[in-house]
């Protein structure tokens, strides 16, 4: 009504102002409703994670309460102490080093997962970046078929290769070795890494390599220059995704180890739920292992869709 009082307005002017305000109000209300609904949906998906994180600082009776309490609960650091520091003043038999089920001290599992995850990620990046370069820059006969073949390896059912690989690993003495698992995790991630790096590589203009080569650089030098100058972001995003998938891999790691190496997924599969005390430990292990991953993935969020579709959707 400010406009109306400031100047004697015609009836038509007032009508338009009112209409405009009604529209603005309606839009505001609908946006508010959409926001509320979005917040609700996001909370539904976030709730299990929140609950799991809280369970790692709850006492067992608190974990076993339905409905679960979000704010008012009895907190304890017991699970975190046992899982991360192998220290529990109340129980004597928890302090046991080594392998075997029922050991909740989880630093060894996290270490195994980290070694295999980082090792396989570096390995697969070194393998795949040149391949992506070749697919992007060279004229290769039947390139489309080759690309599709690499893609089709992403669709390979793990259950179909588990047993032959188990036999092969036993013959080669690779069971329970970091190098064997690093090789396998790299092989699983290779299609993702090649196609994703290809998608990043295609965005770097070809003129840049040509210019480098005119200046006297060899083809290989030009390739290295492109990778280290223009593809750092792409390498980062590809690396994070490969690490996440390696960190989650379960079936192949399960059948290619016999207890000597236990990654987080394998370890969490052997935590039995016969003792309800273990829920807190499982929650603490889950929280400790997923928090860093959450940070990494949010860092490369911008490239996530491209990564999940192997470069098909940008």
């Amino acid at each position: 009504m400010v406009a109306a009082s400031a100047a004697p307005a015609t009836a038509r002017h007032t009508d338009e102002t009112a209409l405009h305000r009604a529209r603005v109000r309606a839009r505001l209300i609908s946006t508010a409703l959409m926001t509320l609904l979005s917040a609700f949906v996001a909370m539904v998906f976030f709730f299990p994670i929140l609950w799991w994180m809280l369970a790692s600082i709850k006492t067992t009776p608190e974990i076993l309460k339905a409905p679960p309490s979000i704010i008012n609960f009895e907190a304890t650091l017991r699970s975190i102490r046992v899982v991360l520091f192998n220290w529990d003043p109340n129980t004597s038999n928890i302090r046991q080093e080594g392998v075997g089920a029922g050991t909740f001290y989880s630093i060894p599992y996290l270490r195994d997962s980290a070694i295999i995850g980082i090792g396989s990620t570096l390995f697969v990046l070194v393998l795949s970046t040149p391949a992506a370069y070749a697919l992007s820059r060279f004229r290769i006969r039947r390139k489309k078929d080759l690309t599709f073949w690499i893609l089709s390896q992403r669709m390979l059912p793990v259950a179909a290769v588990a047993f032959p690989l188990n036999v092969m690993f036993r013959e080669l003495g690779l069971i329970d070795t970091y190098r064997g698992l690093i090789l396998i995790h790299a092989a699983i991630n290779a299609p993702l890494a090649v196609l994703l790096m290809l998608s990043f590589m295609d965005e770097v203009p070809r003129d840049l390599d040509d210019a480098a080569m005119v200046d006297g650089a060899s083809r290989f030098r030009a390739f290295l220059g492109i990778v280290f100058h223009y593809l750092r972001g792409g390498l980062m995003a590809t690396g994070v995704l490969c690490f996440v998938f390696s960190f989650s891999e379960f079936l192949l790691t399960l059948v290619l180890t016999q207890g000597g190496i236990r990654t987080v997924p394998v370890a969490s599969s052997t935590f039995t739920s016969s003792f309800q005390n273990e829920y807190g430990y499982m929650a603490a292990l889950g929280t400790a292992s997923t928090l860093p991953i959450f940070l990494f993935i949010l860092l490369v969020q911008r490239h996530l869709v491209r990564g999940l579709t192997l470069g098909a959707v940008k």
Partner: protein
Amino acid sequence: MATGQVESVDQRLLAYRPAPRTLGQTLSTFLDRPFFYIFPVIAVLLFLGVYPFVYNVRNSFREFDVVKGQMESVGWANWERLLHDDRFHGAILTTARYVGTALVLEFALGISIALLLNSGPWLSGLWQSLLILPMVVPPTITARMFGILMNSEFGAISWLLLKLDVIEKQEPLLGGTGKHALTAVMIPEIWQWTPFFVLILLAGMKALPTEPLEAAMVDGASTIQRFFHITLPMLRPMIAVAVLFRLVDLLKAFDYVYILTSGGPGTRTWLMSFDAYQRSFTTIEWGYGSVLALVILVFAILLSNIYVRVFNVGWGNDDGSR
């Protein structure tokens, strides 16, 4: 004069013999070949894809003899056994139900949530970031998590469903006669992978040109008409890709079943990949396990190839550069 000069250049060119190549030069020619760049990855993929295939084919004509303690040739017996293996036939049906239901639900939920987030709510970036998190939790940990949430005595999900009268006390999500067991292994799957559809479809929606929608709005098309006649057809390529990836990953489903139900109660959650795993690693039917592995492989190859052809999903279908 001029011609004489040219001739002398020609003669010099004819007389030219390249100097023997140094090691460095040989190496640098090698570094110019695409083969050098692409070979390592192909070697690793062959190691993962081809050796196991050859091994499985060979192994499918043998079986482990418990008495002799070694592999014995059995001819086509393993393949004949496949024809009347009711448990595996059941596993195919269960897998089909699992894959089909999860795919439809994830797609329907995913596109609804993507539409919601695309309608311009405040803080949409925050909601999107929260939705990303489920995808990166290792599936085994997800299974553990939902195992507790779905516990019949104190699980929050069970409690909620009981209150809402969706399930009864004597038929819990996990356990009982297993009436809801397949649903129970699908719940973590849907929680974890609905965001996959949300992200891809949301990215697709944001990239759509706005003109067709505006034109339709001017022509007086309703919201529902605009969605079904404009948004959905334009999103088709993204939908095709998202469904393809979920389809192949759902066919591989193993982790949730392994941890939550071990295929039970009875064979209610007995999926194909779990069956192959059991034969190869638990009941020591190595030859027959290889047969099942090959069947699973053929399923995956056939389905994804048919799918790619039918929906024309392609990496670089449109440009000739690849």
